[in-house]
């Protein structure tokens, strides 16, 4: 079932075209990575999908509803963590969650409040006002707020901003759990490619208001490549020349061969290497494939 369907979305500000006819689809259960350079139109797209910004043209359906018409109803099942968001600095964390819960028509009991704070790694016993929180603590609190209405669809704009590596990993695990257990659809807009690689199954790349790529993350197509490292046992020199087409040797480091795979899945590549007589013992993906994809689709490369 399609949770988000966008066709030909266009938006301008003061005559300056920010979105130039983008199209995208997000299925239920996806963790969708939304990438793009600064100013590419990601935040504008998210705001239009939420119905808090009008569009100039295009068809948009979120959970089957047009946000500009049914925004009020839509926002009961959707939530967002914006990139830049303020807090009511005088509130305490539990006051903050209770306040927003009430805006969603929910009463947050004390035990539930404690659970939600613990869930994001905050100390429920901390009675200090939010203005004393660190950036990371505020980010965690913001994430806790997004779960208050048990949304079907969650938008996260730079969710791991200000978090240390351990904090990032905790948030990743939390999002993956929510996606798995509650089939929550998550759209993540971020510059941190590691987050996208770890979390997302689909990715879209926005560049200068146009969608330059949309597809599954770990399925290389004709225009993408992934890198793998293969450990071979006593490979002879001649065998290395028998590496099939579509697989390029980038570097050799002892028994480890780093290769670029194009136009086929890693499983197919491994099979072909083995058939070619290479004594493969181990294979592992090399991170950075997404980086290549990103740079390719935002640096004026292949469209």
């Amino acid at each position, binding site marked *: 079932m399609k949770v988000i369907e966008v066709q030909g979305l266009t938006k301008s500000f003061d005559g300056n075209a920010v979105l130039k006819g983008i199209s995208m689809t997000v299925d239920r259960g996806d963790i969708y990575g939304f990438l793009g350079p600064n100013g590419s139109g990601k935040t504008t797209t998210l705001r239009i999908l939420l119905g*808090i910004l009008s569009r100039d043209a295009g068809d948009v359906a979120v959970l089957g509803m047009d946000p500009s018409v049914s925004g*009020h109803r839509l*926002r009961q099942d959707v*939530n967002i963590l*914006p990139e830049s968001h303020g807090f009511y600095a*005088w509130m305490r964390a539990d006051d903050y969650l209770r306040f927003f819960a*009430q*805006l969603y028509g929910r009463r947050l009991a004390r035990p539930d409040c404690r659970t939600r704070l613990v869930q994001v790694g905050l100390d429920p016993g901390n009675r200090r006002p939010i203005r004393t929180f660190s950036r990371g603590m505020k980010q965690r609190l913001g994430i806790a*707020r997004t779960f208050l209405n048990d949304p079907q669809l969650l938008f996260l704009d730079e969710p791991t901003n200000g978090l240390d590596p351990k904090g990032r990993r905790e948030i990743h695990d939390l999002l993956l759990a929510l996606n798995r257990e509650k089939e929550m659809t998550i759209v993540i807009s971020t510059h941190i490619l590691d987050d996208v690689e770890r979390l997302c199954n689909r990715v879209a790349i926005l560049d200068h208001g146009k969608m330059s790529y949309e597809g599954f993350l770990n399925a290389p197509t004709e225009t993408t490549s992934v890198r793998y490292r293969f450990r071979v046992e006593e490979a002879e020199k001649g065998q290395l020349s028998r590496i099939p087409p579509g697989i390029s040797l980038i570097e050799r480091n002892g028994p480890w061969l780093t290769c670029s795979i194009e136009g086929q899945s890693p499983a197919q590549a491994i099979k072909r290497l083995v058939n070619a007589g290479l004594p493969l013992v181990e294979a592992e993906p090399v991170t950075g494939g997404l980086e290549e994809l990103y740079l390719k689709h935002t640096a004026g490369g292949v469209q």
Partner: protein
Amino acid sequence: MSAVGSLLRKELMEEVFSTRGAVLYLTCSAVLSIFAILLVSNTELSLLDNAQAVYMMCGIVLALGLLIAVVRGSDGFAGERERQTLELLLVAPIKGQEIALAKLGGTLIAWVLVFVLASPFVWAVGSTGQNLGPALIYLFFSGMLLTLILGGVTLALSAKTRTFKATLSIGLTLFLLAASPVILGPSLRQGSIGRLIDWVNPFAHGLNMLDSVVVDSQGISFQLLHFAILTCYAVAAVWSVNVMTRRVEL
């Protein structure tokens, strides 16, 4: 608690218990104290007729209340926008008008707080009790209506302007336009232009009503026209809030 109730409670907590609220109300109290002490310590002022003194004190209270209404109204949406808290309100399933209702409610509560702070001062200067009761009653209701007018107009503007500063400058300009003819004094308002300004100026209606009640001891029948005009303005202000907050964007 409904969403509007929750928002209103937040407004109240921010208004009264925040540092900004503390500074605002302490300043109000200080201004009233300074004026009251001036009334007593200055030889000529201390001989003022009670009714005159009560009327002047009521005028100061009205002006303070309206200034606070202008500041609060200007901050309504523009301030939330600047503090980056507006987006979180807009993505919640509440309408712009509900947010505006809570903001306007908060502004009215602010007027009530100013009135509560000012009542002891009005009582203190009205020692012979001449028209003291009616003064307090008319001050309260005219203040409510004027707060609704000026607070509502600035709130409506803040829904569309980008910054608090821009809205505040418009709001203060409106306040000064309303107050300036009154400051000019009765002799300058005798001409046709002066009378026209008095007619269209809601602040002038509020002050003239207090003058009529407190100084001239005139009854409610003399005030009905003033009330009617203030009510019309208040209805128009609330309507403008409703229209401007139908769709609030970042």
